[in-house]
């Protein structure tokens, strides 16, 4: 069992319940676990799952269909519990280990994720789309196939939000930043499989992407997807060892380009704008300031923070796998987040992850709040043609 590796980690938890019900930061008290708040029972939160993991290890409990469903449904892998644990219990690794064990035993992942895994295994993208269509967005952009700096599109931006990928590349080009692109040789980064426990499929993606990037001379990779960013930057290193390239999120690069005056915005946006921290960019990688600096520099924008921001940001509901698997639960969590943005007075939510956009946008539509991915928001401000 992969879980056995985490026996010591499990022993560290003293069941204080801070991850379960509340975190405190001076006069602010925050709920911690989105699935627990929506669904109620303890098995939805970290403390409950730690007790389940201990019981599994001791042979006091066995996986069954209901438990398998709960272990997927009951965690977004948003990392809020891990980030507030006073004893630093690595909850995320424990929960991922259980998912790997379930897959190995033929019990997981849950059905919709099996389809995602098959799509990725066979068509190299989460949607099961034609691999040749992956680069449709890039066909008029004359992006080279080789170079030192690569743009990694990811499945969501390549197939569902081509505006974002176009915006990212055009912003970089406008600032004099040349990027290369793998076109249909780019495969899914492997994030959904790392999250759902299908490590064999994930490794196939990782190895392919690494081989191609190395062969094409990549020294730097830039992506606009928070999930791809964390996976390329951290998971690749953990699974395959040190890589010969550095990985950046587009927000880091744009922030620097704005600071050096290489990007300027032509049009004013006189609206109240808030920023939603994607879990994979914020809690997972500690990138909080660059997107905020970018938004605050746009003249006319009144930047407002939601009550729960940065390390305490409430997940959009998408997690890495939740949106595909339990859309109704994801929508409820997204609605809570949009309500928080409205309470802060925001008319626009800017985020830095296409999955967050896809989950927040339907919830925000009802509230007449607009949702943009950061590159699109900036490209519009720069007057770039991205449609």
């Amino acid at each position: 069992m992969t879980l056995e590796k985490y026996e010591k980690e499990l022993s560290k938890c003293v069941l204080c319940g801070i991850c379960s019900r509340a975190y405190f930061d001076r006069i602010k008290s925050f709920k911690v676990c989105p699935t627990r708040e929506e669904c109620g029972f303890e098995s939805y939160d970290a403390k409950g799952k730690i007790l389940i993991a201990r019981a599994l290890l001791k042979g006091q409990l066995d996986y069954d269909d209901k438990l398998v469903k709960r272990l997927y449904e009951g965690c977004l892998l948003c990392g809020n519990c891990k980030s507030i644990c006073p004893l630093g219990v690595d909850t995320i690794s424990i929960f991922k280990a259980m998912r790997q064990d379930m897959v190995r035993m033929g019990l997981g992942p849950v059905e919709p994720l099996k389809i995602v895994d098959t799509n990725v295994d066979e068509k190299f993208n989460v949607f099961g789309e034609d691999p040749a269509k992956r680069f449709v967005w890039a066909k008029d952009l004359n992006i080279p196939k080789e170079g030192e700096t690569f743009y990694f599109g990811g499945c969501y931006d390549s197939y569902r939000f081509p505006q974002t990928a176009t915006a990212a590349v055009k912003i970089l080009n406008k600032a004099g930043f040349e990027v290369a692109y793998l076109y249909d040789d780019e495969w899914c980064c492997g994030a959904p499989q790392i999250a759902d426990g299908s490590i064999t499929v994930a490794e196939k993606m990782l190895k392919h992407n690494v081989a191609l990037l190395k062969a094409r001379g990549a020294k730097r990779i830039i992506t606009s997807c928070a999930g791809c960013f964390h996976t390329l930057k951290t998971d690749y290193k953990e699974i395959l060892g040190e890589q010969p390239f550095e990985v950046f999120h587009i927000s880091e690069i744009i922030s620097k380009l704005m600071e050096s005056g290489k990007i300027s915005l032509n049009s004013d946006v006189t609206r109240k704008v808030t920023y939603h921290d994607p879990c994979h960019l914020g809690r997972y990688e500690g990138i909080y300031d660059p997107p905020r600096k970018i938004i605050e520099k746009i003249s006319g924008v009144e930047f407002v923070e939601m009550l729960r921001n940065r390390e305490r940001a409430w997940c959009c509901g998408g997690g890495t796998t939740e949106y595909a698997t339990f859309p109704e639960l994801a929508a409820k969590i997204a609605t809570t987040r949009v309500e928080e943005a409205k309470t802060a007075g925001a008319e626009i939510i800017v985020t830095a992850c296409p999955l967050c956009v896809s989950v927040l946008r339907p919830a925000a539509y009802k509230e007449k709040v607009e949702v943009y991915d950061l590159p699109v928001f900036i490209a519009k401000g720069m007057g770039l043609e991205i449609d």
Partner: protein
Amino acid sequence: MEIKNAIEGIVGSEDISDDEFELVCYSKGANADVPQYPLMIVRPRTAEEISSILVLANHTKTPVACWSGATNAVGAIAGRTILLDMTAMDKILEIDDENLTVTVQAGITWGELLTKLERQGWTTGPCPQDGLASTVGGGVALSNNAVWSGKYGLVGEQIVGLQVVLPSGEILRTGAGANPNSRNFYRYGWASDLTGLFIGSHGILGVITEVTLKMYPLPETRGSCGFGFDSLDSAISALNRIQKRRIPLEYAGIALKEHNPQFEFPATLVPIIVSGTTEEVDVELKRIRHLCIEAGGKEVAQKIADEQAEGVEMARYGTSYIFGNEIPPGNRKLVNMHPCCSCLPTLDAPKLIKDVKQFVNDAGVKKSNIDVAFAIWACENCLICSPLVYYDAMDPEAEEKVRNFILRLFDRMSNLGFTPHYLGRLRSPAVMGKLGAYSKVLGDIKKTLDPNNIMNPGVLPYYY
């Protein structure tokens, strides 16, 4: 299961579970108790639902217990019960800023309540030692002691009235609210104080569903100072001088040198926090300085006082509960902790603490990876002294060793005159038999209210 179907009819299928994995999740709290597996977990939303469940439970003689996170340190929940997860009942029902009370559902956390009150300029005063993730209902049922209790008194003293569902299913209101024509603004009315009956009752007499608490204006500011003393006796004497003058201390603790080797003075540091208007804080700090210096204290640098105040603030937020700065030096791997919080007369403290230390040494528990540190702070008129029993979470036998040790420790502490705020399964066998008529009366009350002994059986032994 017939009773499950019947309860499902009361609360709906979404709010009940007897899945094996769910029972595991509710089997253990933040304490060394053996796992207590419930029969099923139910998440009620109203007192009326709880009433119907208790009627059913009484009819079938099925035990019932309440759960609100199990952040308690004592093992306060019986096994094989219909376990009522109270955390869905987490609303603030009324903030009455005319009569200075706040009424909440019992499952709200202290953290959420205090945050929402503080945004409106109010506070309930003390915060229970189980941390702000613990619930108000749990804090009442276990008569929590509290940080900040030097100024406001303990949690029990903040309670104005309760709504309790009795084992019979009848819904009781205590305090002024017993009269349906009255607001719940005043605790002591009509006849006996029934509110007090349920404070510290460990859930054996009914289910607390609503709590009305006193509310205070949020202090404008806080001020801190700290004093080093050459002996525990002189530090205690200083605290007693302050208590005698009824100076309202938010916090006054005693940090022992033996747990804090970085201190530059021989025995203890007394960090003090006061609150109020700027003028009040200035006046009170001046009086405190005078009294502490008179008792032999030497004022420490403001930086040290502020650091200590920061530590207390963190304790208030629940983290020192897990790994407080009292962890015995050299034993930092011992992270699990059982606090044995008890009250004791202020001036008796040095002798009693010495006796407990001697007992711990004689017990030779250090070789079993168990160690004891002391957290000490002032209430209005006495001290709270908590021998903190630390143990190694990695040791699979630690919990059993700790359970045995705690029983012996509490036996000794009760012989010395310590008075714990609550007992739970881990401590009560060492104490309840010594309480004479108190135990008998409690047993008689229990028998009257709960003749079938369905409420949290065995958590608090009582004697018919």
